[in-house]
């Protein structure tokens, strides 16, 4: 098997993302504003790999946020792939599920983020869609950085490796 032996740091760095405190605060503000304006029952913002950034709302008592975010990211990825295969791909795609009591919106928010919103069916569909796309556009402008910006995170701190090993062993019954 032909496999390059030299590491190319640039290539590996492309897939990591940092959310700065200012970005996290801005994401929270956009999400909470969308929730209030719509009004929405539930909002969740995650990255494209399904890592949760913000959630707010009720009516999700049976759903863990980690599981939900993973499913949403998978849902959007599958929808985009379907669109690509059928020649219908477009930027900032929105997936709408219209229900009897609730409507759900799943929106691509740039290359990094996913926005999910659930609203009661009494909320006009066009209004909710407009607001979701607007919020998705705002989130899309927030490019997550691939460069470390806030200083070291403690990976080299005292005993990090030992503490990590203990934490892994501590997972098991």
């Amino acid at each position: 098997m032909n496999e390059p032996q030299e590491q190319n740091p640039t290539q590996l760095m492309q897939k990591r993302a940092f959310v700065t405190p200012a970005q996290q605060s801005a994401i929270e503000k956009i999400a909470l504003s969308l929730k209030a304006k719509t009004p929405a029952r539930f909002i969740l913002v995650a990255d494209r790999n399904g890592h949760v950034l913000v959630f707010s709302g009720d009516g999700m008592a049976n759903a863990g946020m980690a599981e939900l975010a993973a499913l949403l990211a998978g849902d959007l990825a599958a929808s985009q792939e379907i669109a690509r295969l059928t020649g219908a791909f477009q930027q900032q795609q929105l997936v709408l599920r219209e229900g009897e009591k609730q409507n759900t919106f799943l929106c691509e928010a740039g290359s990094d983020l996913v926005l999910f919103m659930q609203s009661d069916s009494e909320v006009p569909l066009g209004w909710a869609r407009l607001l979701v796309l607007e919020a998705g556009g705002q989130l899309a402008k927030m490019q997550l950085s691939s460069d470390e910006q806030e200083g070291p995170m403690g990976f080299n701190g005292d005993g990090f490796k030992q503490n990590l090993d203990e934490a892994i062993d501590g997972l098991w019954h």
Partner: protein
Amino acid sequence: MLINWKLRELNLKIVYYGPAFSGKTTNLIQIHSKVDSQKRSELISLKTQEDRTLYFDFLQLELGKINGLTPKIHLYTVPGQANYESSRRLVLHGADGVVFVADLGEDSLAANIKAWKNMHGHLISFGIVPASFPMVVQFNKKDLPKAMPYERVADQMQVNGRPKFPAAALQGEGVQDTLRAIIQSVMQNITRQIA
């Protein structure tokens, strides 16, 4: 990988990859059953009517606070069946490390090699250099009466210097060691990159 400075969270994605019926989902079922419920999510499985993985399985592990940092480990499996190539690629994208689950069953060598090469092809297409990417190999079903020696399978697959773990995942053997090794490997890689 996603690092959230405000929340002091480190989010990692580890993907269990391998041929059909090699035991990828079994690994996650074992982890789910043996990890304290306070430290894991529910196990999500998107299955076909025949109980085969259709898209992915998902399980999140929380290691608690380590040096003021909260690592969250997201474990995924890919579907092993041949016709789910697009799904495999989608799930593999964004992975920080891979557990390749090979099958020691006597008729599985060709399927192991095909999946191994296929995975490398995807990684390269993502701009990842496989030789320096965190990856461990689990040789599952060592308890089968006619199991192939794992060393032979490793040679045929050209696993080379990757960490290797013979396992009987259905009995839970080798599951914990494999998971520990991939988490350590991913963390070492991150430490090299950004610490």
